[in-house]
C-alpha cells in the first residue's frame, strides 16, 4: 500500500527538528489510482487540449464520459422559467432563509419527490420510487463509497463484473478498506455475467478467506455501453439470495439508454417481489451527472429497499450533503414532467445518433465495436491490431493512439478487462464536428496501417 513515514517529500520543513510527522496509510496509499493510464491520458489532454479554432491538432478527449449533447434543452428551460423562481423555489426571495440554514440530512422533501419522479419516468413507470427511501449524496462517487462503508467491513469484498469503471478501484476501496474481487466476463457472450462466473468469483474470494458482502453492477454497463439483460438480473438476485449478500445496481446511465424498452432496472424485478428479506438486499445508485449532464452540481442518490441502510446512509450523508441551493434549483425542474419527458426522449435520440455516427465511422475504418445500446461511449475492439496479445501490447497501442493520433481513449486493462485489445471511446463530450475529426484521424491511421 505505501510507507507510513514520509521522509523525503516534505518540502516545507523549515525547522531544526529531525522528527518528520507521520501521515496515515490512507494518505500515502496509491489506491486513488491517479498514476494509471486512465488518468495519464487526461494529463496529456490537459497539456494540449483540442480546440476547433485555436488548436485543431490538439488531443481530443475521448476518455471522459460527460454528456454535453443536451445542454441547450436545459438552458432553454432555465431561461424560460422565472430564474428567480427556479433558484429559490416557488417562495421567491424569502425562500433564501430556509435555503441558507437548511442542512438536514433528510434532504428537501420536494427535491426527493422530484428525484423519485424523474427516476420513475426514466423507467417508463415500470417501477415506483418512494421519496423517503432516497438518500442524497454529493455525487454517485460518494454514494458508491457510502454504500460500501455500510455494507462491508475492512478486508471484506464486493464482487464486480469486469470490465468495470476504473474509478471503482478508488471509490470502493480507498478509505473503506474493502476489496474488489472481479467476476470475469468475456466477449464470447458479449461480456454478460454468467452464473458460472459468479460462482467462480465467489469461490476465489472464499479460497482466499475473504468474506463476500455483495455484488456491485453498473446497468447500463460502463465501459460496455450496453444494458444488462433481464434474465441476468434475475440470476444475480437469485445468487445474492442464495449467498445471503447484497446487490448494488449503479444505474447512473439509465437515462442514456437509446431505446427505453431495452432497459430493465433491478427496481422492476424488486417491484414484483413481496418478500422483504429478498428486497432488502437491493440498493440502487443514481446521479444527475450523466443523464442530465450536470456533474458540476454534485447530485447523487442511494435508493435502498432496506430501512436500516436508508437510516444509516442518511446519517452518514452528513459528510457529503447536497447543497440546499442545488436542491432548490433542481426540484422544480425535475418535477416538471412535461420538461423531463421531452428531455429524456430527445437526449436518448441524440445519444443514439452519436453512437450510430461513431460505430459507422469505425466500421468504415475496419474496426468493430461491441453491440451497444446505452451510455456515452462505445466499446471498441482493436485486438487485431496488437503486435503482442498482452496487456503491454495493449498499452503500447494506447500510447501510439495518444501520441500519434492525439486521441485519448481508455484501454481495457485499466477497466480490468480479461481480454486484451478493447478500448472505451467516449462520444458525448464533444460537438459532432469534433467527433468527425476524431474519426478522420482514425481512418488515416488505419489507411497507413493497411499500406504496410
Amino acid at each position: 500500500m505505501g510507507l507510513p513515514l514520509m521522509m523525503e517529500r516534505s518540502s516545507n520543513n523549515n525547522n531544526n527538528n529531525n522528527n518528520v510527522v507521520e501521515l496515515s496509510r490512507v494518505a500515502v496509499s496509491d489506491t486513488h489510482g491517479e498514476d494509471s493510464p486512465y488518468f495519464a491520458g487526461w494529463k496529456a489532454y490537459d497539456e494540449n487540449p483540442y480546440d476547433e479554432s485555436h488548436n485543431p491538432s490538439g488531443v481530443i478527449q475521448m476518455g471522459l464520459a460527460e454528456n454535453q449533447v443536451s445542454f441547450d434543452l436545459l438552458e432553454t428551460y432555465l431561461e424560460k422559467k422565472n430564474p428567480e423562481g427556479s433558484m429559490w423555489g416557488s417562495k421567491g426571495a424569502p425562500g433564501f432563509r430556509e435555503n441558507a440554514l437548511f442542512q438536514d440530512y433528510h434532504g428537501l422533501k420536494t427535491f426527493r419527490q422530484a428525484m423519485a419522479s424523474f427516476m420513475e419516468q426514466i423507467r417508463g413507470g415500470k417501477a415506483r420510487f418512494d421519496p423517503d427511501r432516497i438518500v442524497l449524496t454529493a455525487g454517485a462517487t460518494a454514494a458508491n463509497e457510502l454504500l460500501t462503508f455500510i455494507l462491508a467491513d475492512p478486508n471484506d469484498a464486493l464482487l464486480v463484473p469486469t470490465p468495470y469503471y476504473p474509478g471503482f478501484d478508488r471509490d470502493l476501496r480507498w478509505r473503506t478498506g474493502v476489496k474488489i474481487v472481479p467476476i470475469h466476463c468475456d466477449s464470447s457472450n458479449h461480456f454478460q455475467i454468467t452464473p458460472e462466473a459468479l460462482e467462480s468469483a465467489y469461490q476465489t474470494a472464499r479460497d482466499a478467506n475473504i468474506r463476500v458482502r455483495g455484488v456491485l453492477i453498473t446497468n447500463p454497463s460502463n465501459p460496455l455501453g450496453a444494458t444488462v439483460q433481464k434474465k441476468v438480473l434475475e440470476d444475480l438476485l437469485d445468487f445474492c439470495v442464495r449467498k445471503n449478500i447484497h446487490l448494488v445496481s449503479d444505474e447512473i446511465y439509465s437515462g442514456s439508454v437509446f431505446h427505453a424498452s431495452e432497459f430493465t432496472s433491478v427496481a422492476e424485478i424488486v417491484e414484483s417481489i413481496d418478500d422483504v428479506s429478498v428486497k432488502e438486499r437491493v440498493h440502487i445508485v443514481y446521479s444527475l451527472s450523466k443523464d442530465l449532464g450536470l456533474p458540476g452540481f454534485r447530485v447523487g442518490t442511494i435508493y435502498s429497499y432496506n430501512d436500516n441502510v436508508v437510516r444509516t446512509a442518511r446519517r452518514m450523508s452528513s459528510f457529503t450533503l447536497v447543497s440546499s441551493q442545488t436542491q432548490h434549483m433542481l426540484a422544480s425542474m425535475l418535477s416538471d414532467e412535461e420538461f423531463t419527458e421531452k428531455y429524456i426522449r430527445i437526449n436518448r435520440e441524440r445519444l443514439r445518433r452519436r453512437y450510430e455516427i461513431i460505430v459507422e465511422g469505425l466500421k468504415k475504418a475496419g474496426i468493430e465495436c461491441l453491440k451497444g445500446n446505452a451510455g456515452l461511449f462505445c466499446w471498441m475492439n482493436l485486438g487485431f491490431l496488437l503486435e503482442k496479445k498482452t496487456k503491454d501490447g495493449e498499452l503500447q497501442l494506447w500510447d501510439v493512439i495518444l501520441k500519434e493520433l492525439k486521441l485519448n481513449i481508455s484501454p481495457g486493462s485499466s477497466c480490468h478487462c480479461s481480454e486484451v485489445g478493447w478500448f472505451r471511446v467516449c462520444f458525448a463530450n464533444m460537438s459532432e464536428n469534433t467527433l468527425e475529426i476524431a474519426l478522420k484521424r482514425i481512418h488515416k491511421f488505419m489507411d497507413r496501417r493497411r499500406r504496410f
Partner: protein
Amino acid sequence: MRLIVPLRGVIQGRGGLFVGSLIPCCLFYFLQLYLKRRRPPPSDPTELPRTFSRTNLFSRGNSIGRVRVSSRAVPVAKPSDSPYYIGLERVKTDPYDRITNTDGIIQLGLAESTLCFDLLQRWMSENLMESMMQSDDGEFDISSIAMYKPFEGLLELRVAFADFMSRIMGGNVSFDPSNMVITAGGTPAIEVLAFCLADHGNAFLIPTPYYPGFDRDIKFRTGVELIPVHCRSSDNFTVTVSALEQALNQARKRGSKVSGILFSNPSNPVGNILSRETLCDILRFAQEKNIHVISDEIFAGSVYGDKEFVSMAEIAGSGEFDKTRVHIIYGLSKDLSIPGFRAGVIYSFHEDVVNAAKKLMRFSSVPVLVQRILISLLSDVRFIEGYMAAHRQRIRDKHIRFVEGLKQLGIPCAESGGGLYCWVDMSSLLTSYSEKGELELFEKLLTVAKINATPGTACYCIEPGWFRCCFTALADEDIPVIMERIRQLAESFRS
C-alpha cells in the same frame, strides 16, 4: 422398534413373531435411509436446494437469512443516547414560535446565527443571479456551472477564501490558496483530515468540554478514537500542557497511538479565545511528541469580546516551529450563516496532506454554481467588511443581554469572547452535584421550562452543571421569555 416386536409376537405366535418383527424393522430402516438422502447437506446453511423454482424462492417468507450490514454501520442507525441529539430532536416536535406557538420549546442547542440575515438576503437578491451565471459575454451559459471542475475547488474560490480568512483573523496572517482545499462543509473537512493524519485505531487528544458532533464526525467511519483532556473552570476551561502530557502518557500506557491534538478556537462550547502563549504551548508540545495539531477555527469571525483572535496559522508561520504538522479547519456555516450552502476549508502546511485531501474531495465537493456565488460574495470586500462588523456587533449585543438576564437570576457564565453561545453555570439549580443531577436538570429544562440547552455531559465536561446556550437565533423579545421560564423552574425547585 422394541415396541413393535413384542406386540407382533403376542398377536401371531412364535414363528410369526420373527417374520412379523422383521418386516416393520426393514421398512423402518429403509424409510430412515430414504429421508437421510433427501435432507440437504448441513455444510452451508444458506445454500437452498436448487430444485426450487424462482417464484418459489422469492416467496418463501422467513426461510431466507436476513442480509446484514457491516459492523461499522451497526452503531450508526441506533437512536442516539446523547442529550445533544435528543434535545435537537425534541425541539422539532414542538418548536417555539413567538407568534404561532408561544408555548413551544425554545431552541438554544443549535449554534447558528440569524442575526445578519437581512444583510445577506439583500446581497443575495441583488447579486445572486449574476454571480451564478457568470460567463465572458454575459450570456447564460450552463456549461460553466454544469461541467466537471477540479474537486478541490476553483482557484478563484481558494483565492477569495484566503483573502477572507486573512481579513477576519485580524489581518496578521496570510493564507496561501495552494495549501487550501474546499470541502462541502466543516463536517467533511474534519473527517478528511482524520483520514489523512491517523490510521484506524489511532487517537486524537481533545480538550474537554468539546463539540458533541466530533464524536460522529471522527468516529463514524475513520475508526479514530478521541481521548478527552480534561479542563477545569479554574482555568476557564483552557487546556494546559500538563493535562495534555498526562493524557498522552495514559494513552501510551493503554497502548493507544496518539496521532494528534484536535481543538477548536474560539472554543466550542465554552467560547474561549486561546491566547498566543497557549497556542505556542500546544504546538511546542505537539512538536516534542511528534504529532499533528488540528485547529478548528470555524468561529474565527464570530469574535465579539475584547480579546484578540490569533490563528494557529500565524503561530505556524512564525518560523519557530515545524509547520507541516499544523492543519486548520474553517467554514462559512457560522460566520456567514449559510450552513445550507455547504462550504468548508481544509488548510494544511503539509504538501502531502493537501494532495491527499484534494483527491478525497471527489467524495465531498462543492457544486460549481455554489462556488461561483461564494467567489462573488467573498470578493465583495465592501460588503464583507460591513457584514463582519455588524455580525460581531450584533453577537456582542445579544451576548450582553443574555448574560445579564442570567445574572439577574443568579446564574453566572464562563468568560467567553467568541462563538455563538455562552457556557452557563447552572450548578446552583442541581438537586445533586453529579452527572445524574445534571441530566435531570436537562430533562426538566426541556419538558418543564421547554428550553433546549446542551448539558456539559454531552460535551464530556468533567464538572457537572454546565450548559451551552446558543443565543444568536433569538430576537431580543425572546430573552425575557427564556429568563422567566428559567426563573419559574428555579422557583419550583425551591418549593
